């Protein structure tokens, strides 16, 4: 093709960008792909770029024409719009970012056409989206019916009774490339590939996720086992499982309370604000970990001026150590660490809360990966196999328990794919190694979490960056007096003014009780 021909081709492709087009290699599409996509998806689109080995889920192999997020029937090719949406929005549960803001319309549309050249299937098939109506209105009965069908069509087999991806089949799942794949945690809608609107969830139920174990449920409507409206109810129910998208805030506030929650499921926790702390794989210190299970922890804190209590809640489909997840662990380790022989030892789940040993002045904080030799950190380390201890960290591989009497109490519980951990200790202790917790000062805090059934321990786990724990200051008794005095003064002043006003008008005002 001549240069002129190319130019016309580019102009044309820009012109008809919205219409379904034949797969074509344009200089723009190829250039964009080679620059931004090839490192993960591979030069030939086979999902085998140089960065692919560090990922789970791994980058899509475009040669198969299998795309997860589509509007077309199970197994079919995606429409151009489907591919464009995946490029625009990214795939939230994976390393794939959204590109809408970084590439122009022409660039992204050319990229769609270029991706199609990787699979011969695009040569002759013109898929069309599945047709269906809109959702019924949301109401309580509808959600109950959705839950009923969630049970009947056995969504729970993979996604679990509470939707946390912990169903009995979850440990055995693999994708079309025989890689371990998680049953999606339906309570974390913000991680859904394809979005978490009710419409998006319904589309996933109708079309399935090609290449993944998630099947299409459309045949159940054809077979008159359920109506389209009932499938919408399932979508609405799934949507209701993640009522909020967490907002990440820097400061975890510990409210001052009269009675401190004393256990992990103390109802008092319901009234205490929750703060979401996102976690990512630890990829700084070797051996690194690119496939962490825990992607966030909800932190709650309270104190009564004597003791502080923390409740940490996180989703993990497996209560470890757990023989039922052994096969999963072996598979994950063989993919992520092909050179390492997985141990036969069953691993526990663990969570560590990290603080400095003293509250720093200003913004200074110790090294966030469990401190350093000359600047240790204070750790509250919990392990599903052995309770919680206080420890000092001088680096990820140099952690030692703190001796002497501890005021730390702990309780943990696991149900339906969720851990809840209670930690409480005195604010002030006699030990110099144990952080003196003061009110009214931001205290740096970070979190580490490990899923033993995912092969995680030591440096291989999930970490957060530094956040702050802030304990509300107790109010001095004198402070309580001010409002009372102010109210009294105002009242007295008011009476004086009224009396004067009445006198000035010659006592013309109505007397109390006169009418």
């Amino acid at each position, binding site marked *: 093709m001549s240069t002129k021909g190319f130019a016309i081709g580019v102009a044309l492709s820009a012109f008809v960008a919205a219409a379904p087009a034949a797969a074509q290699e344009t200089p723009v599409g190829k250039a964009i792909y080679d620059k931004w996509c090839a490192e993960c998806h591979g030069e030939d689109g086979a999902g085998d770029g140089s960065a692919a080995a560090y990922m789970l889920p791994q980058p899509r192999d475009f040669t*198969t024409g299998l795309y997860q997020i589509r509007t077309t029937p*199970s197994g079919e090719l995606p429409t151009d719009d489907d591919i464009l949406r995946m490029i625009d929005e990214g795939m939230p549960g994976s390393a794939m970012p959204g590109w809408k803001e970084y590439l122009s319309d022409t660039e992204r549309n050319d990229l769609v056409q270029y991706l199609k050249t990787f699979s011969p299937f695009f040569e002759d098939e013109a898929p069309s989206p599945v047709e269906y109506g809109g959702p019924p209105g949301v109401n309580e009965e509808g959600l109950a019916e959705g839950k009923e069908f969630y049970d009947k069509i056995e969504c729970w087999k993979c996604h679990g009774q509470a939707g946390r991806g912990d169903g009995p089949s979850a440990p055995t799942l693999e994708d079309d490339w025989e890689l371990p794949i998680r049953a999606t945690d339906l309570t974390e809608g913000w991680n859904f590939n394809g979005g978490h609107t009710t419409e998006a969830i319904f589309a996933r139920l109708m079309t399935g996720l090609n290449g993944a174990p998630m*099947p*299409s449920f*459309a045949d*159940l409507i054809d*077979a008159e086992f359920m109506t389209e409206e009932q499938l919408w109810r399932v979508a609405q129910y799934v949507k209701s499982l993640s009522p909020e998208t967490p907002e990440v805030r820097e400061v975890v506030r510990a409210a001052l309370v009269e009675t401190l929650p004393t256990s992990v499921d103390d109802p008092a926790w319901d009234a205490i604000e929750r703060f979401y702390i996102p976690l990512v794989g630890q990829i700084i210190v070797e051996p690194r970990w690119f496939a962490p299970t825990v992607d966030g922890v909800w932190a709650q804190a309270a104190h009564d001026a004597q003791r502080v209590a923390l409740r940490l809640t996180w989703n993990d489909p497996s209560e470890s150590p757990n023989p039922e997840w052994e096969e999963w662990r072996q598979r994950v380790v063989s993919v992520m660490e092909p050179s390492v022989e997985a141990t036969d030892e069953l691993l526990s789940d663990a969570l560590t809360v990290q603080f400095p040993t003293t509250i720093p002045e200003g913004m200074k904080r110790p090294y966030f990966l469990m401190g350093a030799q000359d600047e240790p950190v204070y750790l509250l380390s919990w392990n599903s196999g052995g309770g919680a201890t206080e420890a000092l960290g001088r680096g990820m591989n140099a952690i030692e328990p703190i001796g002497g009497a501890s005021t730390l109490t702990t309780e943990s519980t696991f149900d339906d794919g969720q851990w809840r951990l209670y930690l409480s200790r005195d604010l002030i202790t006699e030990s110099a190694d144990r952080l003196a917790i003061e009110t009214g000062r931001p205290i740096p805090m970070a979190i580490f979490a490990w899923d033993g059934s995912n092969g995680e321990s030591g440096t291989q786990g999930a970490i957060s960056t530094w956040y702050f724990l802030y304990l509300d200051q107790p109010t001095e008794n004198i402070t309580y007096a001010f409002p009372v005095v102010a109210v009294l003064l105002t009242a007295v002043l008011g009476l004086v003014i009224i009396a004067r006003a009445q006198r000035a008008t010659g006592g013309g005002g109505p007397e109390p009780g006169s009418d």
Partner: protein
Amino acid sequence: MNFSLRQILALVVVSGISIATACGGGGEPTDDGADGDAPAAAGPVVSPDSAAMITGTVSFEGTAPAAEPIDMSEEPTCAEKHPDGAMRQLVMVAGGGLANVYVYVKSGLGDRSFPTPSAPVTLDQDGCEYMPHVLAIQVGQSLEIKNSDGILHNINTQPTVNRGFNISQPVVMETSREFSQPEVMIPVKCDVHGWMEAFIGVQAHPYAGVSGADGSFSLADLPPGEYEIEAWHELYGTQSQTVTVGVKETAEVSFTFSSDMAGNHVPLGEPLVLR
């Protein structure tokens, strides 16, 4: 050998059905191929006066791998259907014959085309197992997927040449699908029950079948000619032979698989060629 009489019986029945169905379109007088309502435009039907046949046996040498128990404790409905405990055995040997070998005419039919059989081929899910384990079907022929268990199965086909599908069957129900391209072989799995696996061979012609419990197979109603016959096993790969049959002749072909062949390449679809 440690399969029960029940298992062997089931296999005999199932393999018999699958061969009969797969070969049904070939023009046997009583079958659809020669029926008045068969689409005549689909191509020449072999005349009963000249129809040839290839029969044979697939034998096995060596030691079959030990059967592995399947833990069905999560699925009482299925566990109940296996009172002696469910076992996974990919190498089914009886009297020296190897079952579940897909045997088909790989080449020699030229550009003949064949009518699509109107009778469907059934893939049943019963006791959390696929019945049959290996099946032959023709391009465009209806695959009836049946759930006899009434618990959630998903049918996840993973072809390379065809477009696949992954559909859910949470109750007793039937669903039909078809394949548009010849392919050897299409794996089928159930993600809910990781042990469930089946293989589907698709041809544009009716000359394909699956060896029975005794290892026997037959490809009936062939036009006389020279054919390459291939035999496929899920653990031991493929082997092929060339055979010539004349008018109304029956030719014998024997294949032997051995335990030494474990590790052979097992074709699953043709590799996709990138432009």
